[in-house]
């Protein structure tokens, strides 16, 4: 299975990662290699085996529904690039 330039551009746009024109071919090759490895694994017969969603064969632990977190807004906003009136500020999002 091979990944083309268009695929790389689409994936990088979706992931919000910039891939320069020079890098595209190289990234396409790398991604293709990953898919090839999966294709190889696909060849293994897994009939009758329940798919796992997690490599650990364990179940989720649960937390009591009790408030354990306090307000540390001032601390967190000190390291934010921009904050005002308790809000984190980001470049305007046009809807």
């Amino acid at each position, binding site marked *: 299975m091979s990944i083309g330039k268009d695929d790389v551009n689409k994936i990088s746009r979706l992931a919000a990662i910039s891939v320069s024109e020079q890098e595209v071919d190289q990234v396409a090759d790398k991604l293709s290699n990953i898919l090839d490895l999966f294709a190889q694994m696909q060849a293994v017969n897994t009939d009758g085996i329940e798919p796992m*969603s997690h490599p650990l064969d364990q179940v989720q632990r649960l937390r009591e529904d009790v408030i354990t977190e306090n307000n540390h807004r001032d601390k967190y906003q000190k390291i934010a690039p921009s904050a005002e009136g308790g809000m984190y500020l980001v470049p305007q999002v046009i809807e």
Partner: protein
Amino acid sequence: MTWEVVIGLEIHAQLNTNTKIFSGSSIAYGAEPNTQANLLDLGMPGQLPVLNKAVLPKAIRFGLAVGATIGRKSVFDRKNYFYPDLPKGYQTSQFSYPIVDKGGFLEIEVDGEIKKIGITRAHLEEDAGKSVHDAFPGQTGIDLNRAGTPLLEIVSEPDMRSAQEAVAYARKMHELVQYLGICDGNMQEGSFRVDSNVSIHKPGTPFGTRAELKNINSFKFIEQAIEFEIARQIEILESGGKVVQETRLYDSEKNETRSMRAKEEANDYRYFPCPDLLPVVVTDEDIEAIRAEMPELPSAKRARYVFEFGLSDYDASFLTGSRAMAEYFEAVVSHSKDAKMSANWVMGELSKSLNQQGIDINESPVSAEALAGLLARIQDNTISGKIAKQVFDAMWNQEGSADEIIAAKGLKQITDSSAIEALVDEVLAANAAQVEAYRNGQDKMFGYFVGQVMKVSQGQANPGQVNEILKRKLS
């Protein structure tokens, strides 16, 4: 051939827990911005989610109520997209293995016809934060208090064929989640949000392209928005155009929908299982324990009110309209033992007063016990039904209990027959001409005498006795 409308709804019901779905931050509404947003909620690296125990029984209760299959092993997935109110870059949701699986349905009634609306699934997920667009010039403010609030997203089949059906389904769902005690149903605060997928096609052909109407916080506006959208799509298709798949916002002031964002690429969410969370396993014992604690559902309650209390279908529907209303009514009946009388007062004076002040039954200044106290005084003939309304108004104004008000205002009904007889004599003596007329065959005069006696007694004479004594005196 006419167009057929196809509507499916996605409803986000906020689960009424104390804390977020994956962190111990409070989800109380109305807190100062970002004071309920901890490191995990902010999407800081190195933070790990731990599932809130309280969300599972709530979701399962819903699944059981709609007759769906419960996912014995449900899995959390990452839904990837970028928006500043979602700092992790993905929403933790459920995709392939939801907690509430296929098989559920809800019955709705439109124009006297019952229709089954299928429920595709319901899954657990986290809410995003809030974006504030108009407060900071050139910038958007982000409040992450809401980020991580537990939601149950309830997805219907595209089974609805009109705006009326869609609203009937949404209302039914709104009533159900409140009855189940899993969601407070507060639409103004966003606890219950309805997204409508609307498309049109010619019957027998594939479904048309749909538009999604988002974030409409009243049933009336949902209906108007869908009606507008149907008309818009018909106009486009009939003039040879194409409907674009997109999210549209409803503007209630202009009564129109307008494009928010085209969805072509945003649809590519690249779901994959969240490696930070393990599968959630639900056992038969868990399910049976939850089933054993299921509250009575509205339809069962309605049937019981008709059967057990002998109420009409209308009264039963009215009183089961919300769980709070039903609980109030049942509390009154438990004291008064008279369902019909209790129903009349809850549906009459009480509802009238609640409506006038625009408040909910939970906020009623007259408690169920206090109302029952008033009914007891009608039942033991201390006051008449008419005086009781006066007492009720005083109770509504916080003037005290029924007994206190009756005593303070001297409203106790006169049941002493010699006292009533004196009043009757007084009235007959003062109205000699009318008595003459009555004796000459003007039967209608009788009502006039009753009225006069009630008037001189300031409404406090027992009406039954007044009638009896008048009849005797005039015969």
